[in-house]
């Protein structure tokens, strides 16, 4: 007798299709978010906040209520929603261009206020949707369409380490950086997301998970090479880890 051990989560729309490039990391993370919403059985009590960039089209994927936000402001929209509906689960889904570049002020203030929301930040070290320009998290030396000779610190400074900074905010209850390069890392990433959900569900504070994700199109690499690039290069600059966990469980 065979048992079903994995299926498409219910919190994804039945006829929804991810519209990302082949090998893009967004799909894996969105699927894990949907799985967790199923597992916590909070589909009817969740309001998702989309952002600007490849992270924008949540209403095309999720079987959830969705509010949109302008570039960088989804933590503010989430704050407004959560303050009015404190019994709902509210999360923002953002990229590094959104959460760590144009909206980093909003990110750290939301963390400092200890808003009971969860932020998932996909870090693929560039502005993916607009064609691969350098973002705040772009690596030194990384070639992008706006750093064609590679990011030079003397011209454009150094990569911003979002999770490390967010972890220093007093209102942050859980903060981690994860990768989705291998099945083992994907499981760890899901455990981190679960933690970031739980701190909100238990009213402990702000949850933040930065996910290193592949952008094969703008990196000009195959999907598999992109994953190797994350492991071998990006993780050296943006190291994985749990930077804060006020529940004390690791």
């Amino acid at each position, binding site marked *: 007798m065979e048992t079903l051990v994995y299926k498409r989560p219910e919190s994804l729309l039945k006829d929804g299709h991810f519209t990302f490039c082949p090998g893009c990391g967004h799909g894996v993370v969105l699927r894990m978010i949907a799985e967790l919403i199923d597992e916590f059985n909070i589909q009817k009590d969740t309001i998702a906040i989309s952002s600007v960039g490849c992270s924008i089209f949540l209403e095309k994927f999720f079987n*959830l209520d969705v509010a949109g936000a302008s570039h960088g402001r989804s933590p503010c929209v989430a704050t407004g929603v959560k303050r009015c509906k404190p019994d709902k689960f509210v999360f923002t889904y953002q990229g590094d261009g959104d959460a760590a570049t144009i909206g980093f002020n909003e990110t750290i203030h939301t963390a400092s206020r200890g808003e009971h929301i969860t932020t998932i930040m996909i870090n693929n070290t560039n502005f993916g949707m607009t064609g691969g320009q350098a973002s705040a998290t772009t690596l030194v030396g990384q070639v992008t369409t706006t750093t064609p000779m590679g990011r030079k610190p003397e011209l454009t400074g150094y990569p911003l380490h979002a999770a490390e900074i967010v972890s220093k905010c007093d209102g942050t209850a859980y903060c981690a950086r994860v990768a989705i390069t291998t099945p083992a890392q994907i499981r760890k990433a899901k455990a981190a997301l679960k933690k970031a959900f739980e701190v909100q569900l238990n009213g402990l504070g702000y949850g933040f998970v930065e996910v290193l994700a592949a952008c094969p199109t703008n990196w000009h690499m195959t999907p598999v090479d992109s994953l190797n690039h994350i492991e071998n290069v990006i993780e050296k600059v943006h190291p994985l880890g749990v930077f804060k966990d006020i529940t004390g469980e690791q």
Partner: protein
Amino acid sequence: MAKVLVKGNEAIAQAAINAGCQCYFGYPITPQSEIGEYMGAHLPKMGRVFVTAESELASINMVIGAGTTGAKAMTSSSSCGIALMQESISAMCCAEVPGVIVSVMRGGPGLGNIAPAQADYFQALKGGGNGDYKTLVLSPSTVQEAIDLTYRAFYLALKYRNPVMLLADGILGQMMEPAEFGEYPYEDPDVSTWALDGANNREPRNIVSLHMPEGAMEERTNRLFEKYQAMQENETTYEDFMLKDAKLVITAFGTVGRVAKTAIKKAREAGMKVGLFRPITLFPFPDKALHDVAENADLILDLELNKGQMLLDVRSAVFGACPVEFYGRTAGGLLTPDSIYEKICELYKKIDNKIEAGVN
């Protein structure tokens, strides 16, 4: 309810509370900081939401979040702070998110000064945000009217699912006068048909401002403009002060309107037929009513505390029915009853001369 002596900013804040404002998000800026201070002192005690945001960008987006849940939400700011909110006001119109924005104008451009002015008429009415959109804009001239229009702002925001701006100036914000609060007089529309509260036994909803499929954005904009047309038909209001036989009609909004009244009374005593047309809704602008008035007038004098902004709407409404003159000061320069009276005398002479010469 008895009249109380109350400051404009505090009257707006208390009226918002009476209107059922569930949450206030704001960032301090002169000359409207008392609104945030009042809200900070009162809302938490009532179990309502008060958040000092990290910027005006943040506060308007918190209003958006609250608005998507159907809550009555408000922010307030002044000139340069309102400038920062423009992108999101456009987004609110597009996504149909209700919310109340109080704008207490100071001198500009730039950081300008903290003196009263009306130089943000264009900012409130003609965008600053991108795209085809309209913000409902209400313009009070007294503290009493500020209270009444605050009530109306909350009602209209929900009725039309649109941002509503209460456009006041530093004079009104800072002045004290007797006013009566009364009770919130409106019955609010049901929000349960569209508000976000989790997809519980219904299809998921979304309230977003990006509409990419071919034709979708034009279709949405057309629908929004039908809504703006309905506002034009149902919500346009203005004050008619001694217009019936007026040969010289003054147009003015907000506090300038009340200053003009003093000058008009003096002019009437001197036998000059002068009246005031004061738009109360700046969008929808009472252009049809103003055109009708202009058809029976010899001259319109537009008075503003700026270099001529509402003037464009006045001219457009008058559409050549009579000449339009402008008199304004800006960035703290004030129009006094005396200076307005002098201007009236100067212009009325022209009208008299024309009548005398039979060229009218």
